């Protein structure tokens, strides 16, 4: 079940780095890999895992690079794909950016890293903090903080001892991203909210953190009043960072942990019951003649008046051969983006309970193009941010930090909802 080697290739298939763990796949196979990828891409049958002449190539593409794991054995595909992504994160952590240039500048340290993340093709550690102990070369761009080595039996593998900050702060961002798909007849085909508690900690020593949420299960178990229960949320499939003591959570729903240093996702969750779309967009098509078509787009905010969506961007697809599209808007500005075949309507501030309208007029060539694509129009896509608001209604009730030196840490909590894959099909 072991990986034979890791190749890092440029997009033409030239080897930039190659770490051979088992000596049963030669680097020259990289060429075969790239030829095969090109063939499959042409036939539209490309997958992230390909088997060619008895060798399996598992790869991810990132900026102008391929990260490829090769194997002859029947390995765990899902885990290796994830490993490659973690490897990418490690590189990004060390070089700030991962692309051909930064890799070439830092290839010695990249080899050092590859040496430690796997041994004989078996993944070992992929946490940048832990790896720091073994990496001796200074990265080209990164300031490496001198850290004392981890104690031999360190129960907390994700945090080193002896971290010091002048000012102790914790930032907690509650981020929810809304995925929505609406059919051309206006029915919501699918809606889903993906939430994450993103944390950044700048804390001295080995702090104990405790986080309280308005968790439904907790409220029920405490026998709170029905009024309180209304405010509680029921989250699906919660996932925690490895630092969270899950047994504690299972028994009394407290989220307690010793956080890693820096940024990490404390918890993620999902909400799949239907939520009312926050911003509703409709498009009416009025075809007067070939020389004049009108799109009438209505955007309505369906959240409370006191909230305001910012950075609203509505991408209205137009036919590729549209001539001189001219927009008129009741709010915001709209500009034609021919490279996207779309009208981009931007509204800086969109208060709740309001409706704005855009009318977009364009012509089509009087003679239809010979190969006029009869393909369906891509959907209208919407981007927005809604600060101080969560769809799920999740709330942080408290965030306590206790460290034996007894310092006071400042917790900062923010809420924001953003549009993920927010698509509305056109008729």
């Amino acid at each position, binding site marked *: 079940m072991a990986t034979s080697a890791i190749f890092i290739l440029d997009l033409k298939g030239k080897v930039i780095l190659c770490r051979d763990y088992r000596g049963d796949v030669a680097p020259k196979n990289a060429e075969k890999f790239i030829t095969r990828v090109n063939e499959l891409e042409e036939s539209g049958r490309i997958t992230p895992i390909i088997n060619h002449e008895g060798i399996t190539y598992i790869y991810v593409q990132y900026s102008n690079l391929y990260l490829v794991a090769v194997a002859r054995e029947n390995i765990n*595909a899902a885990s290796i794909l994830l490993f490659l992504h973690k490897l990418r994160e490690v590189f990004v952590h060390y070089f700030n950016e991962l692309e051909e240039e930064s890799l070439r500048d830092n290839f010695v340290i990249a080899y050092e890293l590859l040496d430690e993340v796997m041994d*004989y093709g078996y993944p070992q550690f992929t946490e940048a903090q832990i790896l720091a102990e073994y990496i001796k070369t200074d990265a080209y761009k990164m300031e490496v903080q001198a850290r004392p080595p981890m104690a031999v039996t360190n129960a907390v593998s994700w945090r080193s001892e002896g971290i010091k900050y002048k000012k102790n702060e914790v930032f907690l961002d509650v981020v929810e991203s809304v995925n929505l798909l609406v059919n051309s007849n206006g029915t919501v085909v699918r809606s889903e909210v993906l939430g994450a508690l993103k944390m950044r900690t700048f804390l001295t020593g080995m702090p104990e953190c405790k986080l309280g949420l308005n968790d439904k299960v907790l409220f029920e178990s405490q026998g709170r009043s029905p009024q309180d229960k209304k405010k509680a949320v029921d989250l699906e499939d919660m996932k925690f*960072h490895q630092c969270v003591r899950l047994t504690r959570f299972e028994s009394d729903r407290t989220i307690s942990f010793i956080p890693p240093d820096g940024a990490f996702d404390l918890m993620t969750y999902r909400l799949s019951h239907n939520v009312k779309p926050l911003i509703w967009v409709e498009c009416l098509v009025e075809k007067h003649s070939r020389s004049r078509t009108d799109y009438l787009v209505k955007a309505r905010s369906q959240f409370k008046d006191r909230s305001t969506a910012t950075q609203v961007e509505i991408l209205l697809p137009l036919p590729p051969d549209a001539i001189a599209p001219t927009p008129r808007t009741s709010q915001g500005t709209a500009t034609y983006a021919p490279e996207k075949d779309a009208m981009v309507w931007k509204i800086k501030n969109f208060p709740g309970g309001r409706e704005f309208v855009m009318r977009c007029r364009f012509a089509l060539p009087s003679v239809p193009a010979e190969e006029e694509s009869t393909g369906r129009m891509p959907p209208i896509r919407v981007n927005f941010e809604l600060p101080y608001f969560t769809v799920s209604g999740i709330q942080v009730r408290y965030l306590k930090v206790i460290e034996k030196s007894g310092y006071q840490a400042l917790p900062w909590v923010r809420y924001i909802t953003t549009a993920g894959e927010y698509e509305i099909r056109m008729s």
Partner: protein
Amino acid sequence: MGGEKVRGELGEIKTTLAGLSSTHGRAPELLAAKREVFKKIVNYMTVGIDMSSLFMQAMTAAVQHGDDIVLKKMLYLYICTYAQSNPDLTLLTINLLTKDSKDTDPHIRGLAIRSLCSLRVANLVEYLVPAISVGLIDQHSYVRRTAVMGVLKVYNIDKPAVHNTGMLGTLKEMLQNDPDAQVAANCITVLEKAGDMKGMIDRAFVVRLLNRIKEFSEWAQCQVLEAVSVYRPSNEGEVYDMMNLLDDRLTHSNSAVVMAAIKLFLHLTLAMPATHQQVLERVKDPMQTLISRDHFETAYAVLAHFHLLAQRAPILFSSIYTAFFCRMNEPTYIKQLKLEILAAIADEHNAYDIATELTEYVGDIDPHLARDAVRAVGRIALEVQDVGGIVERLLGFLEVGKPYVTAEAVTQIADLLRRFPDLAEICVSSVSNISPQDLEEPEAKAAFIWILGEFGHSIQDAPYLLERVAGKFEGEAPAVRAALLTATAKLFFKRPPECQRALGMCLQAAVADSDMLIHDRGLMYLRLLQYSVNEAARVIAPPMEAVTAFAEEQSPELRDRIFDEFNTLAVIFREPSTAFTRRTTVDTLSNGFNDVDGEGAVPAADEGSSLLTDTEQAEALGQDGLTPRLANGSPGAAPAASASTPLPDLLGDLLGGGGDLMAPAAPAAPQPVLSLRPHPHLTPQEFQGKWGALQPAKKESLMLAPPSIATAVAGGLQELNRRMAAASLFTMASGGAAPAFRCYLHGQTEAAE
């Protein structure tokens, strides 16, 4: 030019190295200069230029700065790269590495042992063993875990060396007692590979390992879960204990851990059908999150597992079908899999919604997605018959006006008609609106011609459409020519006067055809017709029989084998690992020849479904792409022909020297005494009456293996029903809960009125 430049560079590096080596002292600039040169060497090495000639100079230069770990790492990398090709020079490095393995810095000790074991030179094993043995009892965990992996490296070069030194025994002890989790995890890896793990896995061991699972790193947790998955608990209570202990692994943020836990749960409960089903319910949520949150690539791997589970237990996933709707910016490989899953989980409740969503994709700009969507609707039409509107959608695709959509739709409709000839009434009028000229692709054209041949009696223009293609017989692809010949011959018996001209053209062209198969088939038709028209009609155009199972479909047995290899490449490639791990260049090249043999052999070997063998056999033979439509007609002839007719021989000839291919079919020729109607008519009342009135004719009890029961139950007995239906036995009623399921089946003999 390039070579010359490199040689120049090589010389330059050599001189620089020599220069640096002769400068004594410990100035930091000297070290920096050396590091630079080594970077250059490693860089050239990476791009594949042979740097082995610098061996001596590099060694000397690096040894002088023995305390610089960066330089050392680069030197080790260099040594390991060229060790195999230069065993003599490698011998010189042994001293250095052995010395370093006793260094005061644990990091250097670990690195030295790792490099020492990575030299992969067989006759150096004697130097490795002592170094590893010392490493295994090192104070520092880094050295220990590296040494543990070293054991495996030696094991792969020289197995006896490892067995003789008793190192595996040491590892077993370390696995139990070492305080460092990663050391223990690496012990598991080595012991598994050396085949020494099996004997160790007992209750006490599993409990101890699982109790400390949280100490392990994410990757090591996967290793542990995988190792434990071979353990078979002695009672159900133990299974529940294990699952309770590990339930939180399903909420881990690392998807590899989640998948490993899922595998363990599924395998643990194989013998407990009801619990197995609960596990499937339980893992649904975490898996769903993995596909919507993780990277596309990881989502792809998870989706492949979803597909496997959906095939085993479609009903469990049928309620979450919207999770498999495609988003616009997902890569094609994700969409492709999602469509297959949608087709697999479609049932009477969701089929309409799914088909509506799929229709959206048919309009997509990406032709691959559009085709996949058509194919998925075709699949649904085959599997879910009671829902209206599905076949109509399929027919609607014929009018979308894009050639590839039309082509795919025609192919799907032909498949649908092969299984449900009754649908012809609804389909032919739409199909007859297209003309063969609109279809470019041979497969679609052949499918269309097959429809004309089988259902030409109700398509007014059929003979003339065929005639038009027959006029350009030579210009068509082999598959089309074969289909055309058969279709024309078949239609001839239904509408002789109109088809005579077309058949004449086809026969003439076929006899002159360079393709052996078409040539022989043409000759056979001709001679049959000359011999006796009635006899020819009986052989060439027997009444059409519905196909109950397509050869492309994976057998449940194969799926079970893949399920055993859950969470590996087997699931991704949809074949057991033996199929792809040993595949070499030679195999792939000869595949083209083997295909026919291979496909023919599979159904023949499948004795369990002997009632089906002849049909399947013919289907499988059809898969070589040369005889697709003929295959359909001929099996119908087989049961009708008495044992004395020369038909099997003729078929053998027809398939171009495939006499031995047909051999397995021969034993099937003796008729089953009982022949059952494909569509029995019996009301529940009648059934109940007969059930009470008739005496039991035969009682038999058979034991099923627990995994098979789990599979059958998880799939809502659909598989059982399908298999029984294939043998013309239909379920009147079924129900019950584990462990007592009841199925009331019935069949009707051909003779019954």
